């Protein structure tokens, strides 16, 4: 199943890239299409943050991951680079679990 998902994602993401370079611009020039396409990454990424940090199975929990996320927010406000944000959050979560 995992390999099927890898293949579907690979083929689909490539075709999505190629489509933009290939279709006549007016097909997607519609204002609404453009607005929704602009907002989809925002909605999906925000939902992924929420689920990744606060869900455990079908439960909502606040644990070390939430403190990791708080650390990420602080690092982002300090304009830290991507890798520092990601591993900084991991470090804080790992540290909290050691306590």
């Amino acid at each position, binding site marked *: 199943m995992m390999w099927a998902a890898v293949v579907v994602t690979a083929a689909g993401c490539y075709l999505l890239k190629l489509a933009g370079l290939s279709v006549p611009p007016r097909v997607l020039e519609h204002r609404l299409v453009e607005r929704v396409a602009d907002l989809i990454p925002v909605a999906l990424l925000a939902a992924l943050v929420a*689920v990744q940090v606060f869900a455990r199975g079908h439960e909502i929990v606040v644990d070390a991951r939430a403190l990791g996320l708080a650390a990420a927010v602080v690092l982002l406000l300090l304009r830290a680079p991507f890798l520092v944000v990601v591993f900084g959050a991991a470090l804080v979560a790992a540290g909290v679990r050691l306590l």
Partner: protein
Amino acid sequence: MTDAPLDPRERSSIIRDSLGVGVATGAYGVSFGAVSVASGLSVAQTCALSLLVFTGASQFALVGVVAAGGAPLSGALTALLLGTRNTLYGLRLAPLLAWRGARRLLGAQVLIDESTAMAITRETREAARLGFLVTGWSIFVLWNLATLVGAIAGDALGDPRRYGLDAAVGAAFLALLWPRLDRPRNRWVALAAAGVALATVPVVPAGVPVLAAAAVALLAGLLTKEPAS
């Protein structure tokens, strides 16, 4: 848009800037590699994603949904929805790059956030193509090498929770989201989407809450008049 040739100074400055972006971006393939094997994918699956999918947010989305216990195919669907933004980038770049045939087929693989950003502001076709190709392919090479390193290291480390790698996934998504929160409308959409996702977690299968949150984007698109950037 002109076809004027590039002077050597401009050429080397575009190459230097593009390589800088390439190195900075490619390096975080390490975090993808580590997070992916921590989510239960094999090293081979992880490397296949970086080689073939090659668009960071979609890759993180697929492994994130799988890590949360979702079905691989709902992870794939989330990844594809995130991949739609590359279509919009392509639409804007098409007249600028003006590629056909094999060059278009090859160029499409490295059509991502960063290569678009490094091409879209150029004044001439040659400059746009140079910025796009150097940025895109330097990220491609480094991203794949870094993924392999991260995957092997992640595999050797054992239980990912001990190192807080489960928290790293959320931080990665937040870092990808952060630059998009510059407009109030986007902040409201992000909050509403997170709320919808958490509200549906107890009642629907894993992976579905994230897809449900995409409806927030549709609704906000229908209800607001603010033009896209």
